[in-house]
């Protein structure tokens, strides 16, 4: 019954966060005027941001949960498999090649997917993925791609550099509601699919052999889940850039509070992470308005102390 109670509480919190996010912003518009005329544009902008925040929060946090369970490594996070640098590299290349800016999200997406394919194949040995190999390949590819990015920027200078800002710091401001819908599809479906694997995730998180002895086809499950998290992460990067902390620390925080049973962990984390990112987004736009603080900074500043408090309280990871 713990679960139901917590679910309802988080759900209500999310509702509150959404309302706050819609009402407050860089510009103060009283609630009664919010939907009138020109103000509707502002309302729509905020709504799109909040939807993006919810997608980013739940998508990255659940991906983090999955990777931490599969790789049995507490440092695993969604960008581990090279997605972030792949997306960045593709974006830089596209800018330098003079591709119209409308296609940048597509380029970033393709870049992210390409790096996962490379990382995956590097780690594969006779059809088997060893966890260590996956982590190492991910790190290597990230480093290589990042170096290429720096190299290209130093050659081609300013235009590439300024394009990289959104990628580096992350931004939840999306203008195209069609794009958000396009991204929401793989993210939401992916999260639902992952939830269906809760049982397998429980078993796998205990150990490769342990899971096999419970009847879980670990190799197949790992491949499927890595693919799903890759799709989720790639889709989110291409509209929002890189937003750190959510995919690494929020899973740990939630595990400390509700335990490692994925049947409970996954839905509650979706809600909690959404609340977290929506609130962080609100702060990023209102703290020093009209200057907007990059969302990655806020998530780190708020998240780190909360994590330390939980750690000190003695709850184990």
């Amino acid at each position: 019954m713990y679960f139901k109670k917590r679910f309802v509480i988080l759900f209500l919190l999310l509702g509150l966060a959404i309302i706050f996010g819609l009402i407050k912003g860089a510009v103060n518009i009283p609630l009664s005027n919010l939907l009138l005329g020109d103000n509707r544009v502002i309302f729509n902008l905020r709504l799109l941001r909040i939807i993006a925040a919810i997608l980013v929060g739940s998508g990255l946090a659940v991906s983090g949960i999955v990777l931490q369970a599969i790789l049995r490594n507490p440092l695993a996070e969604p960008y581990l498999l090279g997605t972030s640098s792949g997306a960045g590299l593709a974006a830089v290349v596209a800018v330098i090649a003079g591709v119209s800016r409308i296609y940048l999200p597509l380029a970033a997406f393709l870049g992210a997917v390409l790096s996962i394919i490379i990382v995956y194949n590097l780690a594969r040995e006779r059809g088997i993925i060893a966890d260590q190999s996956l982590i190492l390949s991910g790190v290597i590819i990230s480093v290589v791609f990042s170096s290429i990015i720096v190299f290209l920027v130093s050659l081609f200078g300013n235009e590439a550099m300024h394009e990289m800002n959104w990628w580096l710091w992350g931004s939840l401001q999306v203008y195209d509601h069609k794009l958000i819908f396009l991204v929401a599809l793989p993210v939401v479906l992916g999260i639902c699919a992952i939830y269906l694997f809760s049982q397998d995730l429980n078993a796998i998180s205990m150990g490769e052999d342990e899971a096999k002895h419970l009847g879980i086809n670990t190799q197949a499950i790992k491949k499927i889940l890595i693919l799903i998290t890759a799709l989720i992460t790639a889709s989110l990067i291409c509209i929002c850039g890189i937003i750190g902390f959510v995919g690494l620390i929020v899973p740990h925080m939630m595990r400390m509070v509700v335990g490692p049973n994925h049947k409970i962990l996954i839905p509650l984390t979706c809600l909690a992470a959404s609340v977290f990112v929506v609130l962080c987004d609100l702060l990023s736009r209102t703290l020093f308005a009209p200057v907007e603080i990059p969302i990655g900074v806020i998530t780190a500043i708020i998240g780190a102390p909360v994590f330390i408090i939980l750690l000190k309280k003695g709850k184990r990871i």
Partner: protein
Amino acid sequence: MGIMLEIKNISGGYYKENIIKGISLDVTRGDFLVVIGPNGSGKTTLLRLVTRALPLRKGEVLYKGQDTLHMNLKEFCRRIAFVSQDASTGFSFTVMELVLMGRIPHLKRLQFESKRDIEIAREKLMLTDTFSLKDKRMDELSAGERQRVIIARALAQEPELLFLDEPTSHLDIGHQIQALDLLKKLNRRNGLTIVMILHDLNLAAAYANRIALLDKGVIFKAGTPEEVLTYQNIEAVYKTIVLVGKNPVTGKPNLVLVPGEN
């Protein structure tokens, strides 16, 4: 009394070399078979090969006449359970959650545990005397309690055949006897067939009805404890001298250590 498991000339290993080089063994229903052997002889590898944790490079394993590799993995795990040596997990589930995972082979992917599954889990917790711990987290337990919980999880799979890899290595002598007594009870009363790796030769002698002595990836000798635990066999395989007496209580062989300096 049927033959449960036929291991036919299997070989397998991790890298290029095979660790197990052609082993054949039959396991009869009701057996309490203990596998012994020096370090590196391949005991754990043997168990992993038989329980499908490691792929077979040669040979086959038949379960009641059926090739195990052709069985659906979950179906296989409904018949055969495995208790591993070290139950250290990264994430701390509660005891109840852990034991309930033993029901996974019986559940479809989307299925939640039913009342019956929870009943079975409770029953196994009581059998292993861990019911009082059911809401504690795994990392709050002592090594002995953890081992008993892992056994409970394996029992929750309701297997016909239970494999254990040194289940008592972290336990003090009191808890060792306690755990083995429990397994012997399940073996005698409930007909659970047991295949276990043990380091302690005297424990093996006391509990097993059959012993398989491994050396360098092959079976050196298999048979009753009296047949296998002779001072000649021990010296040949372990390269150490022992005196073989008789345990006054059980009537089984009892090995006496002979330290080198004397």
